[in-house]
């Protein structure tokens, strides 16, 4: 478990104080794929780098499996670091060494015996599907292949935590997908907790179970991906979520609605998982004296759960509309009224 407790960080450059993090508290549970999202300069990388003490907080504590890592002596800190793998945006592979030697480095540092190193490296090469590249140099690899080497290297010492600093940001969408699948496999098969920092909401949507949204050094919203994505509260979160989960009524339809002189209300309903029972709409039409009109709908899969967003126009008298709203509330669906 990684526990950030009231973390603040101020960088001092040429006697100027630049605040990077402000009172950040987060908990990453074992087995999580925890995503931290924000624009560049939001402080997310700084936060990530605190987990293995590459960066030290000005205030607050970081506990990794219950140990406050900033109070550890250097030799103990090094032991903790060996249990935390790290993957970088720019891969940070040694260009002077082959793929094999790059993956072997953490094991060499651990004074592992040569034949055990070989067994482990071959196993890792197989795991990241690069067995045929063992004697290649990084310069001969594509971005995706380099990142696979980076991941294999990070896994060499069997860490319990994997830190990914914009691990897919230098890759094209297709390669990003294959790296994300690999990360998912790592979390699943090796039971490694993953903390990933990114500015791509797509990454969060694709593999994370928890998310924290950062803006100007603060965590503005956090929780399970399902909760945050289905009901984003902060503007920053909405901005991100809207790019992958559309819930805006198209302009053309808005113009049509504005010309509509009948008495109506527009309501956005979210269906999550099992309660995505579409017959709610059927019952509204059948049991109430209203007419409904779907003005927008989207269905997305998140964490293997279906998230449906329906925006409907309910036309009828005010008391009837109120009955419909009571009905929706009774079914414990999340809803909100939309004003144009």
């Amino acid at each position, binding site marked *: 478990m990684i526990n950030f407790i009231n973390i603040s960080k101020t960088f001092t450059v040429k006697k100027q104080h630049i605040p990077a993090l402000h009172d950040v508290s987060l908990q990453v549970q074992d087995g999580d794929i925890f995503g931290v999202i924000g624009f560049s300069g939001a402080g997310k990388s700084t936060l990530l780098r605190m987990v*293995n003490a*590459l960066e030290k907080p000005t205030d607050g504590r970081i506990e990794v499996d219950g140990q406050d890592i900033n109070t550890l002596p250097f030799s103990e*800190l*090094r*032991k*903790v*670091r*060996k249990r*935390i*793998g*790290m993957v*970088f945006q*720019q891969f*940070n*592979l*040694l*260009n*002077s*060494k*082959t793929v094999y030697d790059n993956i072997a*480095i*953490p094991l*060499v*540092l651990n004074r592992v015996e040569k034949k055990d190193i070989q067994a482990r490296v071959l196993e890792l090469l197989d795991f990241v599907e690069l067995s045929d590249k063992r004697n290649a*140099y*990084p*310069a*001969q690899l594509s971005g995706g292949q380099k990142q696979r080497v980076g991941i294999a290297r990070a896994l060499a*010492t069997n860490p319990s935590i994997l*830190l990914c600093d914009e691990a897919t940001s230098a890759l094209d969408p297709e390669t990003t997908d294959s790296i994300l699948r690999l990360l998912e496999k790592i979390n699943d098969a090796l039971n490694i907790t993953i903390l990933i920092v990114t500015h791509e909401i797509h990454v969060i949507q694709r593999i994370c179970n928890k998310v924290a949204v950062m803006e100007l050094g603060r965590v503005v919203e956090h929780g399970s991906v399902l909760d945050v994505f289905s009901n984003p509260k902060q503007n920053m979160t909405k901005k991100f979520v809207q790019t992958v989960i559309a819930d805006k009524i198209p302009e053309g339809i808005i113009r049509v609605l504005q010309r509509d002189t009948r008495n109506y209300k527009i309501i956005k309903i979210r269906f999550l998982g099992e309660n995505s029972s579409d017959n709610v709409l059927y019952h509204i039409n059948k049991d109430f004296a209203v007419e409904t009109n779907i003005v927008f709908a989207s269905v997305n899969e998140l964490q293997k759960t279906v998230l449906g967003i329906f925006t409907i126009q309910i036309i009828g008298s005010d008391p009837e509309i109120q009955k419909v709203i009571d009905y929706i509330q009774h079914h414990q669906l999340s809803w909100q009224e939309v004003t144009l």
Partner: protein
Amino acid sequence: MDLGIPYSQIILAAEQTIYMVFVSLAIGTIIAMIMAVTLVLTNDKGILKNKYVYAVLNTVINIVRSVPFIILMVFILPLTKEIVGTRVGTTAALVPLVTFIAPYLTRLFENSILEVDEGIVEAAQAMGASYFEVVWHFLLPEARGSLILSVTTGTIGLLGATAMAGAIGAGGVGDLALTYGYERLNFPLMLFTVVVLVVFVQIIQSFGNHFSSKVRNH
């Protein structure tokens, strides 16, 4: 071809030059490597940032490098006497040669090591590497191609300096050119030594380029 002096004397001079270059290069490289690594680790962005160590070392290197070799050589004669027991001869020249080449190589090595991407150091630290391991397993292997070229440049600079070492009776090819070629107006000998020096430099540079590109072309 008659060069006016016995061949044995030419061979001796060549041996003296090679001896001075390689012994001072070996010692100078070790000292320079330690100083360069210290500079890189203690500089403002270094992982062992220490402005006092950096400032002192940086200043000392600058001071030594400001003194022309011929002056440095006579200036440190007392030190030479202290270390090798004599002020003259080939071995005595090693002290000023090392004093001259170590700071020069330090600067070249420092640049080579600074070329290594900071991300490599970060990756090393994330792996739990000790400071020594960061240098040994990451910085130096990554800088190797550039370091080889730095040694090459240093070797050629050293070859030039050995010519002046004749001033304290160190002998060598340069001394031969000055005492026999210049002072006795023996032009063929002068020409011969120049050719020999040119060939030396070409060979050293070719070796350097070859090994550097071998480790770089991955």
